């Protein structure tokens, strides 16, 4: 299991040429199917960084230090951004706020979304650590809110 945060800022390298294609700016996923749909690739430039969406299928591997890609296709890539989801409120079944989304867990191949890291604020996180919730414990999910099982 991996955190999406650990993938952001990794360089994307072309496997055939060894050329650096850019950096991972964000990760896209589909909230309904819980599938990673692609990444937002940022190509550094002196004037203004250029961004483009790259579909998951074009990425051959997600290593610890870099991502390997093949020829980048022009396929349309949609989905929610990791950076937009982070900060969404998490409620339990009784309507109490359990915290906010701190990060998103994916499997080692970065294909499926497994769950979320829940933050309860700076001090609570440091003293108790963050909690993890998995897709099977989620009752309802929208762009800004996640409702999980359990109550007081």
């Amino acid at each position, binding site marked *: *299991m991996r*955190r999406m*945060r*650990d993938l952001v*800022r*990794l*360089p994307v390298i072309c496997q055939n040429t060894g050329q650096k294609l850019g*950096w991972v700016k964000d990760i896209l996923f589909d909230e309904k199917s819980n599938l990673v749909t692609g990444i937002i690739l940022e190509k*550094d430039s*002196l*004037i*203004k*960084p250029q961004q483009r969406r790259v579909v998951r299928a074009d990425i051959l591997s997600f290593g*610890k*230090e870099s991502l390997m890609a093949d020829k980048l296709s022009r396929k349309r890539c949609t989905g929610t951004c990791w950076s937009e989801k982070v900060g969404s409120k998490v409620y339990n079944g009784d309507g109490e706020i359990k915290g906010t989304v*701190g*990060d998103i*867990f994916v499997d080692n191949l970065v294909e499926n979304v497994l769950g979320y*890291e829940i*933050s309860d604020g700076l001090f609570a*996180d*440091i003293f108790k*650590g*963050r*909690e*993890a919730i998995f897709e099977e414990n989620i009752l309802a999910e929208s762009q800004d809110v996640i409702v999980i099982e359990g109550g007081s």
Partner: protein
Amino acid sequence: MKRSQIRWIFIALLVLLSGFFLFSVKDIISPFVVGVVLAYLLSPLVTSLEKKGLSRRSSVAVIFIWITVLFTLLMFLLLPKLYTELGKLAVVLPERFQVIYDYGQNAKEYYGQTGLPGEVSKLIDDKLVQGQSFLINWLKNVVEDLPGLLSYIGLMILSPILAIYFLLDWKKITEGVIQLVPGKMRGEWYRLLQEVDFIIQRYIQGNIIDAALVGFIIGFGVKLIGMEYALLIGVICGITNLIPYFGPILGGIPSVLLALSKSPMMAMKVALVIFIVQQIDGNIINPRLMSNKVGLHPLWVVFALLAGGELDGIMGMLVAIPLAAILKIIFREIYYYLVSPKVLKSSKE
């Protein structure tokens, strides 16, 4: 004694002795530090030449020849002009100061007639005397420190030569540093260093281009309105523009004072040129060049700048933002390591 204990004693002794030795020779370390910084800044250029088919040695040679030519051209073309402007300024400065002083005196007399309280007038006089003695002390210190400064400059001449050696073996050096970290943690360290590198390179590149553009446009603008010392004003505004938020003010004040010595109207015009260029920079040039390059909230940027200024003056302000960005990355990584759920830690093991 167990072998593991001997290992720890050896490491502790090594760290202590290295620390003691480096502290004893601290005066000669600065050229090495500057050499490393130069090598770090030039490394992307060398790598880009390598990609075009040149060997590492040839790439380093090309870059240094290019820098030497550029520096020589700068010395031959710009320096005489700048020197002439400064020479002219040194001749006319006392009389220009007199003009500014007369403005002050006229204002004082005017307010004196309209009823400026005696204490306020005395306070202004006291502050002027304080300012005068501050300037005299500063000049005295500069003259006293001159021999030390000259030997320091002599030592600094070593830096580019050291930078060449660092650049030739840059890959080996960086890989060696990463190899110091245990294999288990190497991937995370590598990622952290990559991110730090990414931010510093982008910040420095963006800032230097921005400062050069702003300096050039202001210099050109004040030349157009007929102000002397356009080159000097351009250089001052360009260099101070390296400091975000406060730089334009730091560069604007001496430029406007310089223009005030000619006429209040010229001061207004120069202030207007600087204001317009700063607006263009703030709204068009800077956002394009620096768009979220360091990943710091503007409030943190202002705080870091003030803290840098408090700790080490202008130099502190210059390095405050990249340093704050690096500290943010390091603390963030430690924080995420500490708070990560047990389930993630166990899945990594």
